């Protein structure tokens, strides 16, 4: 196995050296097949050296890892075959992972689990695209409607790449379209940091149908059935539902007089709790989701209106625990209902919440200026209490184009969370994002961009203030290279309110200021090489309502992307 991987790596290196400047796709001449074929090869190779990240813990320091991802895509006429080969090799290991049993991935045996054996299949799929039908076997992504009933997708910022391993079919006849799918969830790298790749093996089956009426309105219906942990692998099964069913209707007018669009969706959710003891009688619980989105674009003005009401809209699973059953708490959600807030906001509850959003943008035709404003108001249930909280998020900004390809943008927002009961957590967040791109010559440019968050929390009259941010100063020489200096800061983990490079927490230094440099080389559009050295802040990272805590990074990271 190792020799085969090394052969592939050597072949890729040879291709890189021999590739012409503008890397074309590779055309295959298959002697037994009188059909044209094309191969796309993408290699992603990441090496990280983890030094002491000064986060007050020493069990995540002093190790190196090498991750490789080789994707081969073969296309013969309308037939597609895709294979993603992955490897994870640890040189040394974080103390946090020591003594823990790595999980098995369902493409490999227990002894081949990532971390034990460097090579495994991450994703495999085959498909055929005809004009009126498509069929896929293997790994695929899936979405019904706007993601309220089903959305299994990749989220790069969170390091997640969940697919459904099974079969999916789509066909159309006149104005009618039907999609049917069924398979087991295949989660890649939800918790690579702890050397674990655990598949929850949940079974997802769904059917969606829609019809276009009068070439104007799409009317659709969908149903999804989730069976959690059918193989009985998860030792946290009592924390999961047993079955969940979602059924919904949707109506869409994608283009009305070319100036407006409208989308409406309603879903019902039924969930049967997992019996904690064998033979226990359990009862179905119910939830629902209502969502509406209207968009109007008139002349220089565009207006978006969204409204939602969700109750008990939760389709979240946990990845199976290991032998000690304690440490892996990676959660995966198979739905992604719209949050109505900027995507990086820390949205704690997107399951039991109602509210709306209004967004307005104005760009006079003769100007290079854009004005933006949005308001979101939400009424959200508080977990762990009978109370609720009112959330508002007000954001405004301006954008200006200049000197051809130059652009400056500033956005300022205010987010407030106020509980409707005494003693609850009150949060106040002032946030800013800004960027400016300055062309120096035709091929040279400077860029400054970043974010700054100023946060105030108060819980039972106990105040806590913190700041977080990251600013990047970059230089680019098109198309060859980009270099940047990255300065970050975060006072939240230390509990300090003042920004100093290090905070003292019981004698342990906690880094609060982070400095890193990076260089990106773009070679012949075939290879992109990035090197980053220094420190990067960690913390809670949220994308569209799904959040994950990342540790700070200190060390060197090199990643190489090869495309043929």
């Amino acid at each position, binding site marked *: 196995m190792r020799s085969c991987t090394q052969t592939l790596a050597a072949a890729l290196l040879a291709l890189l050296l021999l590739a012409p400047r503008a890397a*074309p796709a590779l055309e295959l001449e298959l002697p037994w097949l009188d059909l*044209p074929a094309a191969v796309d090869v993408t290699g992603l190779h990441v090496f990280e050296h983890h030094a002491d990240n000064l986060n007050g813990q020493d069990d995540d320091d002093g190790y190196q890892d090498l991750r490789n991802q080789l994707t081969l895509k073969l296309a013969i006429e309308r037939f597609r075959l895709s294979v993603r080969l992955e490897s994870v090799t640890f040189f040394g290991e974080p103390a946090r992972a020591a003594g823990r049993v790595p999980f098995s991935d369902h493409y490999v045996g227990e002894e*081949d689990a990532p971390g034990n054996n460097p090579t*495994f299949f991450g994703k495999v799929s085959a498909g055929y695209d005809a004009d009126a039908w498509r069929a896929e076997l293997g790994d695929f992504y899936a979405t019904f409607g706007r993601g309220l009933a089903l959305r299994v997708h990749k989220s790069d910022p969170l390091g997640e790449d969940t697919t459904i391993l099974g079969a999916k079919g789509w066909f159309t006849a006149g104005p009618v379209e039907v999609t049917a799918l069924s398979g087991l969830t295949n989660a890649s790298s939800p918790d690579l940091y702890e050397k674990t790749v655990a598949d929850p093996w949940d079974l997802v089956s769904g059917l969606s149908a829609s019809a276009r009426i009068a070439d104007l309105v799409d009317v659709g219906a969908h149903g999804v059935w989730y069976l959690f942990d059918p193989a009985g692998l998860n030792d946290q099964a009592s924390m999961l539902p047993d079955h969940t069913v979602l059924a919904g209707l949707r109506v869409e007018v994608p283009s009305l007089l070319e100036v407006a669009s409208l989308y409406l969706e309603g879903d019902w959710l039924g969930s049967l709790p997992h019996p904690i003891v064998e033979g226990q009688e359990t009862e179905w619980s119910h939830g629902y989701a209502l969502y509406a989105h209207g968009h109007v674009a008139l002349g220089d003005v565009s207006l978006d209106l969204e409204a939602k009401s969700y109750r008990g809209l939760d389709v979240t699973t946990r990845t199976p625990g290991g032998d000690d059953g304690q440490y892996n708490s990676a959660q995966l959600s198979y739905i992604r209902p719209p949050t109505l807030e900027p995507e990086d906001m820390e949205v704690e509850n997107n399951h039991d919440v109602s509210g709306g959003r209004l967004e307005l943008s104005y760009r006079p035709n003769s100007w290079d200026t854009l004005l933006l404003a949005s308001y979101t108001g939400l009424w959200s249930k508080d977990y762990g209490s009978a109370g609720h909280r009112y959330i508002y998020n007000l954001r405004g900004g301006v954008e200006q184009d200049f000197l051809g390809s*130059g652009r400056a943008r500033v956005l300022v927002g205010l987010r407030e969370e106020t509980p409707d009961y005494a003693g609850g957590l009150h949060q106040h967040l002032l946030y800013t994002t800004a960027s400016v791109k300055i062309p120096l010559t*035709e091929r040279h*440019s400077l860029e400054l961009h970043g974010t700054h968050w100023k946060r105030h929390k108060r819980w039972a009259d106990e105040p806590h203030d913190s700041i977080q941010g990251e600013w990047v100063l970059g230089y680019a020489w098109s198309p060859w290279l980009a270099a940047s200096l990255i300065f970050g800061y975060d006072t939240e983990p230390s509990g300090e309110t003042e920004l100093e490079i290090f905070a003292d927490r019981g004698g342990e230094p906690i880094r609060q200021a982070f400095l890193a440099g990076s260089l990106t080389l773009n070679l012949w559009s075939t290879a992109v090489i990035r090197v980053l050295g220094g420190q990067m802040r960690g913390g809670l990272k949220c994308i569209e309502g799904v959040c994950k805590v990342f540790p700070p990074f200190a060390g060197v990271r090199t990643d190489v992307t090869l495309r043929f």
Partner: protein
Amino acid sequence: MSERLLPALGLAALLALTGCSGAGASARPDGEGPEAARGAGSAGVDFSLKDLAGKPVRLGALRGKVVFVSFWASWCEPCQIELARLQELWKELQGRGFELVSVCADPADSEGAVRQLVHRYRYEFPVLLDQESRVSDRFNPTMDLPFGLLLDRQGRVTARHQGYRPGDELTVRKEVEELLAR
């Protein structure tokens, strides 16, 4: 399973290395006649996605033209700057047979943000929605954005562009003009 599949994969890779040729240097006798316009005899890129009006658009219908396929997302600021520059190039060279097609990699729940951006920046080229990553994953499995594919008149990939730095549009222009002149 992996033990059985790996040799097969190695064989496929060897085949790719020994039996393949760059599209730009292909010895195929494809001309620019009606057969070539349909993509016959070549492994041209083809896919079908819906646009913002909900109508299916098939890329293969643009055979015979030089096409730049730009992958972008609503949260990607460099994508927006690149698309503005590409739109200028497209308007200038459209009459000579150049087409710009954009594939939006946003998931379904942020379609509202996509519609805002399209109007805000007055995109006039086709905006195709790839909400299940069916096309993005095929051509850009690492999901780097912005990402672009330049296709010749037979629909074959002649160049890939990852990321955007001001001035990259000059490189694209040069490549497009070379293909238009063929």
